[in-house]
């Protein structure tokens, strides 16, 4: 490993800072390393059977080889021509026998096989004709059924159209009704709104008047309070003056009482002098 402080490079090239491990960073390096590697070689054959899971297989196994095609008898125009040719050549068979015995035998065998094949083909053609007629009948029946189904579809379409028209009518009626309700509701809302506005204006006006009246009363009351305050002040002043005057009069009264006593005693003294 290459070492630089606490950061080292692993043999595989992964840089790890041991003091400040960053797992996400190491995982990113691992992913990059895997991505940079060339495609993996196929698994070696000595892997145990139980370890070979589905992920190991490189796609599905190849399909089994298809069986060889069966030998078909010669068919078509060429086969028929050959059959005709061998029939034509049949009278010359003894000559052929003299000329080339093995070839003649083989030819005869081939002719026999071709004949049988022809018979088989005719049988197949007959069967095919039967099948063709059966399929034809079936097709005709199917066509009839398709016609019936088409008729029914047409009828269904008409019915659906009628239903659609009814639905349209209902939707139109519902829309008209909704519009009417909407209009009526709007009118009623407008009426209610106007009534409420009038009522609010009335209440506002009345309240203002009452507030103005109350304000005038308050102003008057304030003037009264001021006057009462002055009155109270004056009363207090007058009462103070009266008190002072009372005190003066009391003093005068006492002086006069003393004068009166003196005069009384003087009167008595004078009376005594006169009576002597």
């Amino acid at each position: 490993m290459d070492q630089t402080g606490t950061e080292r490079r692993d043999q595989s090239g992964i840089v790890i800072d041991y003091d400040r491990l960053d797992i996400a960073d190491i995982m990113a390096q691992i992913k990059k390393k895997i991505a940079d590697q060339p495609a993996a070689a196929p698994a070696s054959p000595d892997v145990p059977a139980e370890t070979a899971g589905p992920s190991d297989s490189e796609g599905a196994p190849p399909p089994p080889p298809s069986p060889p095609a069966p030998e078909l008898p010669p068919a078509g125009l060429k086969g028929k021509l050959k059959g005709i040719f061998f029939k034509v050549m049949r009278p010359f068979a003894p000559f052929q026998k003299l000329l080339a015995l093995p070839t003649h035998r083989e030819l005869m065998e081939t002719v026999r096989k071709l004949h049988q094949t022809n018979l088989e083909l005719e049988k197949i053609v007959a069967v095919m004709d039967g099948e063709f007629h059966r399929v034809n009948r079936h097709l005709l029946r199917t066509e009839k059924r398709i016609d019936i189904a088409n008729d029914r579809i047409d009828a269904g379409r008409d019915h659906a159209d009628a239903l659609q028209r009814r639905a349209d009518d209902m939707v139109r009626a519902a829309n008209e009704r909704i519009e009417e309700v909407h209009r009526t509701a709007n009118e009623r809302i407008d009426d209610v709104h106007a009534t409420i506005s009038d009522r609010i204006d009335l209440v506002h006006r009345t309240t203002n008047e009452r507030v103005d009246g109350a304000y005038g009363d308050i102003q008057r009351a304030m003037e009264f309070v001021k006057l009462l305050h002055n009155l109270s002040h004056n009363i207090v002043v007058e009462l103070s003056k009266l008190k002072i005057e009372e005190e003066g009069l009391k003093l005068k009264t006492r002086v006069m009482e003393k004068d009166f006593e003196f005069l009384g005693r003087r009167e008595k003294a004078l009376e005594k002098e006169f009576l002597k």
Partner: protein
Amino acid sequence: MRICFVVQRYGLEINGGAELHCRWVAEHMSKYWEVEVLTTQAYDYVTWKNHYPETETVINGIPVRRFPVTRPRNPEVFGRLQDYIIENEHREEDEFAWLEEEGPLSPALIDAVKAEQGRFDYFIFFSYRYYHSFHGIRAVPGKSILVPTAEHDPVIHFRIFKDLFRMPRAFVYNSCEERAMIQGLSRNEAVPGDVVGVGTEVPASSDGARFRAKFGIGGPYVIYVGRIDENKGCHKLFEYFLRFKNETGSPAQLVLVGSTILPIPDHADVRHLGFLSEQDKFDGIDGAEVLMMPSFYESLSMVTLEAWAMGKPVLANAACEVLQGQCRRSNGGFYYENYEEFREALRLLLTDPALRAAMGRNGRAYFSANYAWDVIENKYLAIVAGLERRP
């Protein structure tokens, strides 16, 4: 505060993800709340047959009340119905029929939730996909908190769950990916919730050498812990691991811990040890170079958290968004999408001890920051406190 936990099965013998999750949370939160558990009498999660005879018991200090399952599940009928619903257009009634087949069908449990709603402040339901959560949340929506433990499987797309996800007062998610998935499906962003998960109990001491000596394992090995099942991606793990050995000539062995329903490859370097004790399991993780986590569907892989708690790196299946997200967030695990990535990541892990150590450190730090029990407990307390502030 009185809190009721409602879960499909409950018991010390039950090691299933959501059930164990519920028991651990209930036991830890009993420090703060008065906790009770309502559950069924079932033990087998395939048939839900009534197994526990007692109706009231105390498990590790938590009062537990069990209610009978009125009809056990027929796996064949359920499988056929689920396949039909997943693959065909269907009505909501079909989904309700599926929910009844899914079970555990225990109307008495739902009646108890309704009857006890005045006695508890909140009900915490575990696993959204079962009968008890669906009908329990509908019975007490204003007091329900859902721990959905949702995976990215086709069932979550059922229409009946869209409304269910908008119903609880709060959610306790296992991962950011789970929250994004549920919010994306149901647009329930208005329902408060937090990503919490679950802590795990890692023994103070574990010894890889003891494990090697006990089971006769020499040389480096990677470990898989959990049910050995096609749903957990184990068939791909076998295929990739044997191909990796064949191509690279690595001496590493694959050690499998857990019960199996898959044929194990007949190979000298694939060791199946069956179901082990907790101590043996942790010893096994301690001795391993890497924890393999090939699962396609996980809400929160506890064994992955356990490996990180023990400072071990993880190699996870990238097809599982939760595992991939956790590996990225923790910087404690690699993830693979195909064989080539599996090969390169495993080769890197097996040949670079410094990298394994660094990833282990990251995993341990991630576990401590997010899945230590005090973190989990505080998150639960905060969720409930948040609900108390929002009447």
